[in-house]
Each structure stands twice: as structure tokens, then as C-alpha cells.
């Protein structure tokens, strides 16, 4: 699946990955890869502007730490992020059901 197809869904995917606990950027990209079985073919660098957008929207919050002499930012879901993720999930389910009911049945 290419980056263009993921546009519009990336924010929800990032929220879903962060639901299980705080992660830094690389761990987020690895979790995304593992959970999608490598189906998402997007440059990992595109995650960072998306993470910044989510942080500006108050859905996640980041915290700096130092690991091996490098600065690392770890993100976690905020309360608003949890409720937005629940809404996104509900929207996706009804969308997928509607599309599936049309595409899934032969004419």
C-alpha cells in the first residue's frame, strides 16, 4: 500500500499504535510495520510531520529524554487522543462495512 493511499488514515494508525503505551518514533514505525505485516510502503520520515500534527492537535504528547548520547522524543496518547481514536475506529468500521457490503457481493 503506497503513501498516497494511506493519506487520511495515517493519523488514526499512529494513534492506534500508541494506544498500547508510549513509544518513540523508530518504535512507532517498527510497530506499524509489524502490525501491518509490512504492507505499508511509506518512507518512515513521513511519520514525524504526522506526529507533530497530532501533538499540535493535543491528541498525543511528547517528552524528551537522552539515550546513548542522542535526544529522543517519546510520545503517548492523551485523553483526547483516546477518545479520538475510539471515534476513528467507529467511523472506520461503518465505512468498511458499507464498502464491504457493496464490493463483497457479486452483482
Amino acid at each position: 500500500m503506497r503513501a498516497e493511499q494511506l493519506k487520511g488514515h495515517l493519523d488514526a494508525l499512529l494513534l492506534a499504535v500508541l494506544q498500547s503505551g508510549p513509544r518513540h518514533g523508530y518504535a512507532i514505525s517498527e510497530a506499524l510495520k509489524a502490525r501491518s505485516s509490512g504492507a505499508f510502503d511509506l518512507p518512515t520520515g513521513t511519520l514525524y510531520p504526522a506526529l507533530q500534527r497530532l501533538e499540535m492537535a493535543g491528541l498525543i504528547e511528547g517528552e524528551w529524554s537522552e539515550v546513548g548520547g542522542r535526544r529522543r522524543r517519546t510520545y503517548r496518547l492523551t485523553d483526547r487522543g483516546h477518545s479520538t481514536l475510539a471515534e476513528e475506529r467507529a467511523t472506520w468500521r461503518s465505512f468498511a462495512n458499507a464498502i464491504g457490503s457493496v464490493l463483497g457481493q457479486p452483482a
Partner: protein
Amino acid sequence: MSVQASPIEEYLAKFSTCVPSSPVARDMLDEARDHLVEGALALQSAGASRQAAERDAVREFGSIEQLAVEFRTVIMVRDAKRQARWQLVVVGLLGICGFSAFRLIPLWRGQLSEIFPPPLVACAAAAALLCPSLVLLMLSATRRTWHEARWTAWLLSGRTVASWLFVLGLPACASMVADQIAVLVGAPHAWLLAGLLGGLLLARRVVPETTTIFKQVARSW
């Protein structure tokens, strides 16, 4: 034996030339470095050489041409938000100073005859500082549409206008407040100079483009 340059550091050095220089950009590049180094370490532990691992990590991260536009937009929005907040803080402080100079100090010193409304020009200058800062904050706080090209163009224009008004208006407003203080306590030259310099230094701290703006003003004269 020659030491080979690190592909990660070369990539980050090139990337830093494609995004505006700001604290937000430095933070994003630090995050990118952490990601790239982690990725390279994982590849190295799987048997790749250091150079090959770093090259692969860079390739997976994405080309600079591909990423720079999105990075630039995010950096621009965050910078605008930061600048708008600081502008509002400074304008608020200036308002407190102005209120003290025009009202509280005369009252405190019993110089009731010295109390007069702030000159119209001071009110207009304060509004010229306050309004663009509020507009900039509003533009940068928009959640859903801010990354759209038209919106970012508005934001960029808004920031330019706010920066110019702030950089030129703050020293002028600070001088007016200082002038009023001088009327009450004497030493007009020292107060004027302090107001002007204080305004300039604050403007420079809040708006990174202050020097560029003054250079442009000087050139146009």
C-alpha cells in the same frame, strides 16, 4: 587510512539546509537522527556493515526532496504558533508597563495633574501589535486544514505582516511608554534609550527575522 563520512550525518546536514533554521527544526532533526541511528543499529545487528546499515536506514527514511515540504510546513506552523504566543506575552507586558506609566505611577506619586489618557498613537500602535499576533495565533491553531497549501500561504503572509509590525512597532511603543515614565521621573534620554533598546532586544528575541527586517528597511532608505 581514511575515515568514511557517516551517511546519516551527511543526510542530516543536507536536510538542515532545506528547512528553516529554528528550535523546532533542530528538534525534528534530532528526532530524525535518533530514528536513523536506531534503524542503522538494527541493520548492523542483522549483519550489515556500518556504512551499508546507515545508507539503508537513510533510504528507508525517505528522500529529502520528498520529506522537506512536509517538514517545512510543520516547522513553519509550530514557529508561527510559538512566535504568536511570545508576541502576545510581550504585548501584555508592554500593556502593563503602559498602564503603570500612564495611570499608576502618577496616582502613586500624587501627580494627579499628570494623569491623562494615553495618546491615540500609542493605542493605535498597541492595536497594531496585538491584532496581528492574535490573528497569527488563530491561524496557527487551526487543526484540520492548516496543512493545506492555501492555508499555509495565508499563515506565511500573516507571519510576515505580524513580524514586520512587531519588529517596527515594539521599539516605538516601548519608547512611548519610556517617554511617559521620563515625564514623571526625569532623565528623558536615559529612559528613551532604555525603551528603544529594550524594545529592539525583545523584538529580536521573539522574531528571528528581526535583523533581516531592519536590513530591508535600511536598504529601502
